């Protein structure tokens, strides 16, 4: 049996019918990893002998992004500077998964500290797209998306700061959800940009995303930014019916840079949903053009502060200076950080440090916050009359490894459609909607009001149910 190719809800049914066991499922994943991992390189660290308990609610093999803390497991953000770091505590989402009986397979490869859109900046080397190995899986949760797409995990957790769940989900042909900011606890997620980061599910289909959200979502008193709002049963939102739903198509998202095949795929998806009774309307989100610039100011500023703690004093890499240049402790900081961070991390730390510096704060960071408010208001206004907004997830399908590695600007632009959801805090999902050239998947992005993940599930589910008919 090829258990590893099934979804969690299919596997849970088989378990219920006593046709398989947690052990058997794990073994199928294990042997798949043995077969494909050397080509895909989805994992940064694979855990030996994970705890598997039969008769638990949900003994599903799950892959965890390398920036989510698991007690005593190497958690390194795929960075050299966190070499050897084993947290003494579990992230809240890990506690929740553990309580449901999930089986932890490993920590997945990622762009160093989630800085990137291709998983090429990992200290452990790039992950390959399972659909076409010379292509990137997207990023920064590239390892998580590739693991699910390559059947090396049934579920994965990613984190999304500017598209880091949705963009790799689109590139790898899987479902990826960035929940509303505050819906899932960030406790234990090693921060990139605290006001933008959210943990979310990467799964093979929409039902699995709903199941995984049922486990990980909810208020956490350890995270002051998590929302104290009851969570619904997300599987109740899996309704094959979009009749009368009002969906916006923002004209600013269909501009130069969007590839023909992606554009065609998105409009085909729109046609399908129209046939199902959804009402579409062209809308304008006038501040869209400023999203990427705003994001790179806000996100790098927070990152420069969040990454300051990696200084070689308490944990992770420490380079002991051989001779004194400035003074012993400053030398230790400089040599450790110089050796420990990759190029992209250094670039972003410098960008963020600059925009927070005295004399530049008003012109950059403060202005960034103001534009962020305007972008948020665009969405608030749109959602006064709309139930959802549909856009492409990415301008193109997966690009080749190395193609954009030396061109940060064009790399940054690959997040152009996903960044706004983070800046405004709204939930957004990417679902596979078509296959393009070279058999590469194309993603469809749906966005909704804050805390209305149910709307995303409803539209996604309807699309998924009807796309093959």
């Amino acid at each position, binding site marked *: 049996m090829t258990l590893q190719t099934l979804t969690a809800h299919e596997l849970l049914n088989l378990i219920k019918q006593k046709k398989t066991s947690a052990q058997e499922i794990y073994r199928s994943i294990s042997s798949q990893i043995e077969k494909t991992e050397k080509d895909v390189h989805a994992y940064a660290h694979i855990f030996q002998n994970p705890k598997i308990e039969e008769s638990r609610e949900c003994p599903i093999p799950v892959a965890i992004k390398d920036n*989510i803390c698991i007690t005593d497991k190497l958690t390194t953000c795929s960075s050299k500077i966190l070499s050897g770091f084993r947290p003494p505590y579990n992230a809240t989402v890990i506690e929740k998964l553990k309580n449901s009986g999930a089986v932890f397979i490993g920590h997945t490869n990622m762009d160093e500290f989630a800085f990137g859109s291709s998983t090429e900046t990992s200290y452990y080397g790039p992950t390959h797209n399972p659909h076409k190995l010379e292509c990137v899986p997207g990023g920064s949760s590239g390892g998580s998306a590739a693991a699910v797409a390559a059947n090396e995990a049934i579920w994965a957790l990613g984190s999304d700061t500017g598209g880091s769940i949705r963009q790799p989900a689109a590139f790898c042909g899987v479902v990826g959800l960035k929940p509303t900011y505050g819906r899932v606890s960030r406790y234990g997620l090693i921060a990139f940009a605290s006001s933008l980061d959210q943990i979310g599910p990467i799964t093979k289909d929409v039902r699995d995303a709903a199941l995984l959200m049922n486990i990980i979502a909810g208020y956490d008193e350890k995270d002051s*930014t998590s929302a104290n709002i009851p969570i619904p049963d997300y599987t109740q939102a899996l309704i094959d019916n979009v009749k009368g739903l009002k969906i916006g198509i923002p004209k600013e998202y269909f501009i130069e840079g969007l590839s023909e095949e992606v554009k065609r795929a998105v409009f085909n998806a729109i046609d399908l949903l129209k046939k199902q009774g959804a009402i579409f309307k062209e809308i304008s989100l006038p501040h869209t053009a400023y999203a990427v610039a705003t994001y790179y100011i806000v996100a790098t500023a927070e990152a420069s502060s969040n990454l300051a703690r990696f200084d070689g004093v308490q944990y992770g890499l420490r380079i002991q200076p051989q001779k004194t240049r400035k003074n012993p402790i400053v030398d230790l900081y400089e040599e450790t950080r110089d050796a420990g961070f990759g190029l992209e991390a250094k670039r972003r730390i410098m960008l963020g440090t600059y925009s927070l510096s005295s004399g530049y704060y008003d012109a950059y960071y403060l202005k960034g916050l103001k534009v962020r408010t305007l972008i948020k208001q665009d969405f608030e206004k749109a959602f006064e009359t709309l139930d959802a907004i549909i856009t492409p997830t990415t301008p193109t399908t997966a690009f080749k490894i190395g193609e954009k590695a030396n061109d940060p600007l064009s790399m940054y632009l690959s997040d152009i459609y996903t960044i706004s959801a983070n800046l405004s805090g709204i939930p957004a999902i990417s679902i596979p909607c078509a296959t393009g050239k070279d058999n590469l998947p194309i993603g469809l992005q749906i966005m909704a009001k804050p805390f209305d993940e149910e709307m995303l599930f409803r539209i996604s589910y309807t699309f998924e149910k009807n796309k093959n008919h």
Partner: protein
Amino acid sequence: METTQQFETVIGLEVHLQLKTKTKIFCSCANDFGGEPNTRTCPVCLGLPGTLPVFNKQVLDYGIKIGLALNCAINNVIKFDRKNYYYPDLPKAYQISQFDLPIAKDGFLLVPSLNNELKKIRIHRAHLEEDAGKLMHDAVHPYSLVDYNRTGTPLMEIVSSPDMHSPQDAYDYLQTLKLTLQYLDVSDCDMEKGSLRCDANVSIRPKGETKLGTKTELKNMNSFKAVKAALEYEIARQTSVMLSGDKIIQETRLWDENKQMTFSMRSKEEAHDYRYFPEPDLVPFTISDEKIQSIKKMIPELPIDKYHRFIEHYHLSDYDARLLIQDAPLADFFEICAKNFHDTKKICNWLNTQVLQELNERKAPISKTLLTPDNLIMLIQKTDAGIISNLAAKDVLKIIFETGKQTEQIIEEQGLAQISDDVTLEKIADDLIRENQKVIEQIKNGEQKALGFLIGQAMKKMNGKANPKKIGDILQRRIFHG
């Protein structure tokens, strides 16, 4: 030619106060002093990757209380900001502090000074923040160690306006501030343990000039006296720099207690750019007017108000009132005594001398001792009535502190009552007159010292239990009138 007298000093103080809440400011670790290094820590206060701060609401209450007691306006919306800098005792490499929306601002403190006037020192702002850890260096090892026990201890930083004009002003301000904070019961206010720390900004300017001169910031003073001494040194140093025609450099200077001098630590050019920005891990907090009102009700009578009331209501001297309010439990004790005994001056005499001495020896507040107001009043009354001598009264007080026994019981058990009955005393007087004819002659010739000698002899015969005033009276009567 300019001279020392032509300059005016301007001083502003920054006081860091550790708040004695049950737990730390952003995690649930015990907030305490000392302990084995790194035992009062958790992933949050160690700043481990992925952890998040959760604000301790008790800190908010304490902050509001302090703000109100310092006559500040309390901001209805407060937020936290990150102050970014690298130091091994700061595990996140930023301190969570408050930048542009501090909890309290625009207050003042009335400071009684030596010549009985009240000086109004404005409070510019007061904000909440977290304390850092402690570095431990020694001369033996080529490395330093870090103790994170103190990391995350709640701090309130109280920043005065530059309203002080002498080291004595600064000293008086610190004394009054400390006393006020002690009344609020929000901090140990112990400079030696570091629960109260003070940095001073000082500059001088020609008299009549309204623009502030270039300031230096003084750090590393471990007592109020050290603050005073450091300021005195620094004013003299700045004055001589000015007199020699040089310019003061804006810099941070460290006080060296052994050398009694300040030394340059870093200049303005080397100053940190802290890159403050709003702490994204904490949401802004709103403080309702109801909350402020309910905390206002919890503020006890403050020392300055107590001082005025004691003088007005009990007619105490400035000296007695000032001394009593230094110790809130002692002041409370005084008031209970004053309800039952009219002579407030006498109560003060006892409290501000013998009792205070006992308290100092025991290092305990009066409320934690065995002395009760009733017992003290009884002691005063017995002494007044001549039943025990002043000397014996001191012994009785000591025994009360040790055992808590009633005054009367102690007098009886120890046989301290003075012998005042006329028959016994007159017999002794007769004996003495008979035995000391030579001395009697001297007394008759007006030598008062000789009478003292006889009284001494009488005390000796009575094992110190004679009432000395009474025996003196009897001796005089017998000598001069037969």
